[in-house]
């Protein structure tokens, strides 16, 4: 009978495990609730709204660039590259973003890493083209986009990049042709719709520019595209008889 008795300090193992589980559950629940409250508060305080529905890892970086906060954008792109260096597409987007944020060396390092992962891949040429575009080396950028397009004529971003170069060089018919090809391949590319709107506006077709800016605003309602839309609407209204 005495063998069945346990000392006061030794709880049965099942009971101990249950207590530990309950403790773990309570702690987990507390941390989760604290995270949700903190997340809501972070957006409510910094942006004066509830968190939106986007699940794009680059959205904060793009917003920072749009605000002109290059340091914040660079931090976002570096964070993305640190955690996702095996996904070539995201790595290249981070590289281009770093160049835009003024960290050309960081961008070049990431492009080099992508190149090492997939030597000769046309998408790396495209990213290199964009990096050169953001540093205003337009002829070199165009050459990279053309190399990428020779290897992959369906590369939407290479068509779009070549169009941006041609817009800068005021070669509008070529820019328009490249943008139409990009949008034929991917009609959801908001940036290409915006650039096509710019091409139309610069060549005296404000009504068509309004249509393109309108689609671009639906796809990515950024302040610069909204401003383009308003300007084009004003121009179109002025031209109406």
């Amino acid at each position, binding site marked *: 009978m005495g063998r069945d008795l346990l000392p006061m300090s030794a709880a049965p193992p099942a009971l101990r495990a249950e207590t530990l589980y309950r403790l773990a559950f309570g702690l987990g629940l507390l941390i*989760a609730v604290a995270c949700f409250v903190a*997340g809501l508060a972070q957006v409510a305080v910094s942006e004066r709204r509830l968190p939106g529905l986007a*699940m794009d*890892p680059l959205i904060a*970086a793009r917003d920072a660039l749009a605000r002109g906060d290059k340091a914040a954008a660079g931090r976002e792109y570096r964070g993305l590259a640190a955690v996702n260096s095996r996904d*070539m597409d995201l790595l290249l987007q981070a590289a281009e973003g770093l160049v835009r944020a003024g960290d050309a060396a960081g961008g070049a390092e990431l492009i080099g890493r992508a190149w090492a992962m997939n030597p000769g891949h046309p998408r790396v040429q495209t990213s290199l083209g964009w990096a050169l575009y953001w540093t205003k080396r337009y002829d070199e950028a165009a050459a990279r986009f053309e190399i990428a397009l020779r290897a992959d004529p369906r590369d939407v971003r290479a068509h779009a990049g070549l169009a941006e170069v041609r817009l800068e060089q005021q070669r509008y018919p070529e820019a328009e042709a490249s943008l139409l090809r990009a949008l034929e391949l991917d009609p*959801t590319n908001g940036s290409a719709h915006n650039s096509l709107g710019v091409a139309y506006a610069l060549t005296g077709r404000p009504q068509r520019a309004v249509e393109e800016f309108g689609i671009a605003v639906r796809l990515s309602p950024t302040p610069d595209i909204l401003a383009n839309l308003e300007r084009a609407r004003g121009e179109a209204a002025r031209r109406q008889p």
Partner: protein
Amino acid sequence: MTAVGATAPAAALRRPAVDPGQPFVGFTFDYLVIGGGFSLLVLALLQSGTAPSVTVFLKEHLWTFVLLSNSAHFAGSTVRLYTRRGSFRDLPFLTMGLPLVSLAVLALGLVFPGALGQNLLSLYLTWSPYHYSAQAYGIAVLYCYRSGVPWDEAEKRWLRLACFAPFLYSFLTIPGAGMAWLMPAAALADPAAAAMRGFAATAAQIASFAAPLALFFRHQLGGRARLPLISLLAVLANAVWLVMLSYQVAMVLAVITIFHGLQYLAILTIVHVKEQMKRADNRAPAWRHAAGFYARCLGLGYLLFQVWPHAFVLAGFSYAESLLLVIAVINIHHFIVDAFIWRLRRDPSYAAVAAGRSP
């Protein structure tokens, strides 16, 4: 002549040439949502490029659809786990220990993005196609049960192999995950290894479609327990999702996850509602149970995917790494929970649903 002998020929005569399966809600709903038929229609429209306005509309509202379906489905497994009677008693680690472990892993992944964080991402990307294939298998077997003709273990093994061929293809081909994650880059770059990998991927690609079709016709013609047509559709839809489409293109990937989530939510809600309706103290109509369950999934989905990542921004991490790691950890948690709550033969509620021949 025995009674059985007398009725057997009549039953055989009544048996349709192709078993369409016993629907839960109705043929249209089951074929379009649970079988994945609607996804094939939408994806065909997207791929054809004939309706750019539909593509723009989808892109414009993509994240809303993702929240309504995919985020809610991730939350669904958790809501199901905690609303199922006896879960805390039967699955103490899963219900009480795993959340804290997941939080700890997430925190460590954020602190060590290179050493742990990117491996979490690769793990989730490797596991995800397995999870999709397991869901296709589960749905196929579920409709087999509902048709009332049990499959033996050997037949189920063949069905499982047919369902998992798309996973094998994904494992061999996804960049940054599967084989590309587990094997050293130098070994994969070896021409002989690359050729073998290419050959195996092509074989898996063909098997993803040929194996379920062969199984269907073999059972159709061989006098065996027949694979319902809706089971075949679910398996082929999964093959299209994982094999025929470019899994890495963000838009296509998002659309696939929406339909996977829709399929999952439909089954989960049916299971939940059937369970609630069977309770002796139930007073509410079925739609109220379904709406209440979905509302909880939606609310939790919003908190998990839209709110949670911002908490780590407050702690000084970038939004990009917070979001990616939150997604990875939620996925892994979902895969683990899912493996337990859908144990076909052990879950009495699942068996009750599967056995119910009437919708």
